[in-house]
């Protein structure tokens, strides 16, 4: 007869297990048995999300009794756990609260004050508070001052409708152990509070500052964004993530990771990173014309390994160089890019996303270079797509292609199946997201695609499964020969995919099936589709 051993394993092990479970499942163990309940109430990590705890229809008015009673239970639950930990003399190691309901009307804010105080007085190491931002800034939650006294705090994350009062300026903040500070969509009640916080964290390693507002005129309700940020003297600073601040000056010689997004409205920016010569990862988003500045920066950061440029409005040409650069991602949706020149001898992967079809050329390459292109296609651009493949020099580096096609494409003769002048490049993987149900254009499109390149496999993301179902089935049946269409192979001298196709294997969830007779039936019989999964057809020509 098997005994129940797990409930009596050492608490440290059980807490380890609880820490690895998703919050919902971990909370559930508290009602398994008396001893599990005790384990749960001595578990020092408290993570409570109102959405998980009670999911109610958003259409319910706030004063609805059902809502009120659920809220009471939530408050009771958090309070009970915190009190039990404090009574047992245990530290509240982590307190993470995610409250997506407005606190002001429900007088919940004084409960939250109490909870934060209990945590601050009992050795809290990680404090995360995620509240719903409300339109009226004077109704935002004021962070209690007791947080300033939390000496043991190593990570502070504040997101959403939280206001930092100027009273913090008079306090000396005891953030001696603080290593991660993250402030998103926070309102500062006055000037200098952000700098005050940062300057009191001598050991800070990761800093995130996003969409911060400064509004010290309570009744004008104008959104005034924080305009400038200056970081200096922070020796341990390793990673910085800034969004929405126009002028940034960073003097941190050990900085390795930087992610910067300019104000969405105009993209103007002033970023001074002169002393950050150790930079390894750089991500820039929404910058207006950064070309010259970027070139200078790349010159100053010889150790850069990863570079990401998202939607930075550039001229027609982008030049990138980096002796240690290993990963490069470029996304461009402005329809003006003509050339991308990359001089990076150690580059392992180059990802391109966009609607433009620039000529991508590499000066010096390594053997492992893989280029992945993710393109949105409409009928205006399709003619240039083939040129795009052929323009990537040298040809063998194009490893994968993702195509998103929203409207039916009419592939006419003029697009030139007859126009191929060289053997199509062989690509490892093509991912298709084809969102149209009309069957007629399917065949010409597939014919055109498979004569432009030889993919070893074709994948379909299940995120849009229902819309793509008809296409996936049609495509498979076409490959297996049951739906024939016209193929012009006799007019060309090289391999035709239609006649050359030998084997088609279907792979889903890690299992491969050969010679599937009826794909439609097989797909219908499979269990729930996970949006993150793919169905892949492996092709052997």
């Amino acid at each position, binding site marked *: 007869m*098997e005994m129940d*051993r797990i409930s009596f394993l050492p608490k440290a092990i059980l807490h380890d297990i609880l820490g690895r479970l998703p919050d919902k499942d971990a909370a559930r163990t508290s009602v398994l048995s008396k001893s599990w309940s005790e384990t749960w109430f001595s578990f020092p990590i408290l993570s409570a999300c109102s959405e998980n705890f009670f999911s109610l229809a958003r259409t319910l008015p706030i004063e609805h009794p059902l809502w009120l009673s659920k809220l009471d239970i939530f408050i009771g639950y958090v309070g009970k756990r915190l009190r039990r930990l404090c009574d047992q003399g245990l530290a509240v190691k982590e307190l993470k609260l995610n409250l997506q309901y407005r606190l002001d009307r429900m007088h919940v804010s004084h409960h939250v004050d109490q909870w934060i105080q209990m945590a601050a007085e009992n050795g809290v190491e990680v404090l995360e508070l995620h509240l719903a931002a409300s339109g009226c800034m004077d109704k935002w939650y004021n962070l209690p001052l007791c947080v300033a006294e939390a000496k043991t705090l190593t990570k502070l994350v504040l997101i959403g409708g939280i206001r930092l009062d100027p009273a913090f300026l008079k306090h000396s903040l005891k953030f001696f152990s603080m290593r991660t500070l993250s402030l998103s969509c926070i309102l500062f009640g006055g000037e200098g509070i952000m700098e005050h916080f940062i300057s009191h964290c001598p050991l800070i390693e990761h800093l995130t500052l996003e969409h911060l507002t400064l509004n010290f005129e309570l009744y004008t309700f104008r959104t005034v964004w924080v305009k400038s940020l200056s970081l200096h003297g922070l020796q341990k600073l390793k990673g910085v993530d800034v969004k929405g601040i126009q002028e940034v000056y960073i003097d941190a010689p050990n900085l390795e990771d930087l992610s910067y997004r300019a104000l969405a409205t105009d993209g103007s920016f002033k970023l001074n990173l002169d002393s950050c010569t150790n930079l390894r990862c750089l991500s820039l988003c929404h910058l207006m014309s950064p070309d010259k500045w970027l070139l200078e920066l790349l010159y100053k950061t010889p150790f850069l390994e990863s570079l990401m440029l998202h939607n930075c409005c550039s001229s027609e040409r982008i030049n990138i160089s980096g002796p240690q650069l290993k990963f490069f991602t470029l996304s461009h949706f402005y329809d003006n890019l003509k050339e991308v020149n990359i001089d990076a001898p150690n580059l392992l992967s180059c990802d391109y996303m966009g609607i433009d079809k620039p000529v991508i050329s590499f000066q010096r390459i390594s053997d492992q270079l893989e280029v992945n292109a993710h393109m949105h296609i409409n009928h205006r651009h399709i003619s240039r797509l083939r040129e795009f493949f052929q323009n990537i020099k040298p040809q063998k580096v194009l490893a994968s292609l993702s195509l998103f096609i929203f409207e039916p494409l009419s592939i006419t003769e003029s697009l030139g199946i007859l126009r191929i002048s060289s053997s199509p490049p062989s690509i490892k993987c093509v991912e298709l997201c084809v969102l149209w149900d009309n069957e007629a254009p399917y065949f010409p499109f597939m014919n055109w695609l498979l004569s432009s390149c030889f993919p070893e496999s074709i994948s379909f993301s299940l995120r849009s499964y229902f819309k793509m179902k008809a296409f996936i089935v049609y495509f498979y049946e076409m490959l297996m020969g049951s739906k024939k269409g016209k193929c012009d192979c006799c007019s060309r001298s090289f391999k035709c995919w239609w006649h050359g196709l030998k084997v088609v294997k279907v792979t889903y969830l890690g299992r491969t099936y050969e010679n599937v007779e009826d794909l439609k039936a097989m797909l219908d019989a499979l269990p729930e589709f996970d949006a993150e999964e793919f169905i892949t057809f492996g092709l052997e020509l």
Partner: protein
Amino acid sequence: MELLCIRQWISGLLPTVKKWLSAWCIKPVGGALVRQEPEYILLALMGSPLKKIMLCSSEKEIFSVEEQVMVQHSVIINNMIEDGSYNHEESKIPLDCVDSKTLKKVIDYCTHHTHHHNDNQEDLEAWDAQFLNVDSNGLYDLLMAANYLEIRNLLDLIYGTIKNMIKGKKIDEIRRIFNIKDHGFTPEEEEQNRKEYPHFY
């Protein structure tokens, strides 16, 4: 020949061997070479010194395993050897909380992962899955042993299995899996729980 004779024969050869070894740049450390077991000398002569350590289970059974293997996986054993509290010639590491069956499995795990760490991910995962195909008692014994010896990857592996026993399952199901016959709540408490947190059940 009897082992004793071999020993005497080798001891007789020792001065010559010592000279020969020093010529090959293998230094005897503080006379240790003289006091070592014959097997060590033979191995040293063959040019492949496989340093082994002795682990002693709670049932007093001794397991000999390559030092390299255990040092790579177990933080506790690594610390013991690094700070010198383990003496190669004479002592064995006593592991009183681990029985022989479990210790053998732990050694199996560490040895496989050291020798096959270049294998591809799928093969390793398949081997791990097979390795954990034990009854729940065996699993908890392994868990306690991995915890005691601080073998991070084995711990993570076992935690993953236990996590799957709990994740996404209803309370009654979990109680069945864990063999919780008597949950220990009073009827009022049980009812209160079901009322307050119906989404748990």
